[in-house]
């Protein structure tokens, strides 16, 4: 198998694999929020930014090549990822103490992983619409980070319930239903799209406090260990673009 170097360790890969896939397969965590092993890569959050042969690149979209020199674990990249995470915090309305996802949230866990103790930037406090029209699922746009995982999951399920609209800082998640509301869409609580959101933007109702704060996923393990344990077995499930 061809190999590349990641932080000094050699990582074997199958041709066609991305740097991210090869790294996770080899048990090396590269931070990511919009990447998920079961879906085609998106490349938008940029948490996976690494240095490849002296140039920045997104590990989740860059095909692995033999002999690449990849750096992911440097202090400079930790700082970059910290700033990106802080950007995601200030552009939305993230009030973890009042969020049912707290403790299970990947954005929050990323903050923990990166040693983030404040949000650094000025807050935007955007006004975004809450959609509580669905009996089993809540959509709180305040916490959306535009990773499009729900969009991809729902498209793969053949329902295409979600899409992004707007542009730039005005980007927003919209719903495929006559009224534009979730309650009138085809989304079911059992859908993968209803459970894929890495943050507390799409949450299944009446499940929130079953596990108490303090005993949740990322209260018990760091996002690095947790991600490897959960996502490594799923590798190879992605079956390329799933349009139409």
């Amino acid at each position, binding site marked *: 198998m061809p190999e590349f170097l990641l932080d000094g360790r050699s990582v074997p890969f199958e041709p066609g694999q991305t740097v991210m896939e090869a790294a996770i397969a080899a048990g090396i965590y590269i931070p990511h929020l919009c990447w998920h092993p079961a879906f085609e890569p998106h490349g938008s959050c940029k948490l996976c930014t690494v240095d490849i042969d002296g140039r920045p690149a997104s590990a989740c979209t860059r095909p692995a090549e033999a002999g690449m020199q990849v750096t992911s674990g440097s202090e400079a990249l930790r700082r970059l990822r910290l700033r990106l995470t802080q950007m995601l*915090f*200030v552009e939305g*309305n*993230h*009030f*973890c*103490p*009042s*969020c049912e996802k*707290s*403790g299970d949230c990947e954005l*929050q866990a990323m*903050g*923990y*992983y990166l*040693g*983030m*103790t*404040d*949000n*650094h930037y*000025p*807050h935007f*406090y*955007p*006004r*975004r619409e809450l959609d509580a029209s669905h009996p089993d699922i809540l959509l709180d746009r305040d916490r959306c980070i535009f990773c499009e995982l729900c969009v991809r999951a729902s498209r793969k399920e053949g329902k295409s319930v979600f899409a992004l609209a707007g542009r730039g800082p005005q980007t927003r998640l919209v719903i495929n239903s006559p009224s534009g509301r979730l309650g009138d869409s085809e989304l079911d609580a059992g859908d993968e799209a209803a459970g894929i959101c890495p943050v507390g933007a799409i949450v299944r109702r009446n499940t929130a406090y079953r596990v108490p*704060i303090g005993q949740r996923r990322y209260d018990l393990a*760091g996002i690095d260990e947790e991600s490897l344990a959960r996502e490594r077995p799923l590798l190879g499930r992605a079956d390329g673009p799933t349009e139409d």
Partner: protein
Amino acid sequence: MDRPKIRIATTSLAGCFGCHMSFLDIDERLLELTRMADFDRSPLTDIKQLGRCDIGIIEGGVCNAENVEVLRQFRERCTHLVAIGACAINGGIPALRNRYPLEACLEEAYLRGEGLHQPAIPDDPELPPLLEKVLPVHEVVQVDYTIPGCPPSADAIWSVLCALLAGREPELPRPLIHYD
């Protein structure tokens, strides 16, 4: 002891005093703390005037003109400013009002709210004017250290204080970083 004692001041701006309660949760370590430090202005001492201090601890965000004044005074008189808790760091629960115009919030609370007796928006001149938005502390003054959490655990607060008292750069270990 040859060193002069460290002076600490604390205040709660737009917060719920939860962070101060958590501070008190350091329990018997308070005794250790009082051996090394004296408290200046603080709800714990009920001292109202702020003197020169080494460490200023701010709970809560900034929601009115008085908050701004107190905070600026803390910045001027404290060598190290520590923002403590979600509200100080991102505005927290009080900042939930930020997405609505201030007028609309006041009307909702004082004119249209339920169970109101003689609805009227308070306008006593004693009341400090509200800011259009509740701001985190770092958007008003330079902040040196932050302790996240709602509230931060006593251990987290103790960890940062110990580092500062020892003249070390505080660094919260991962298990002590929480936003909830």
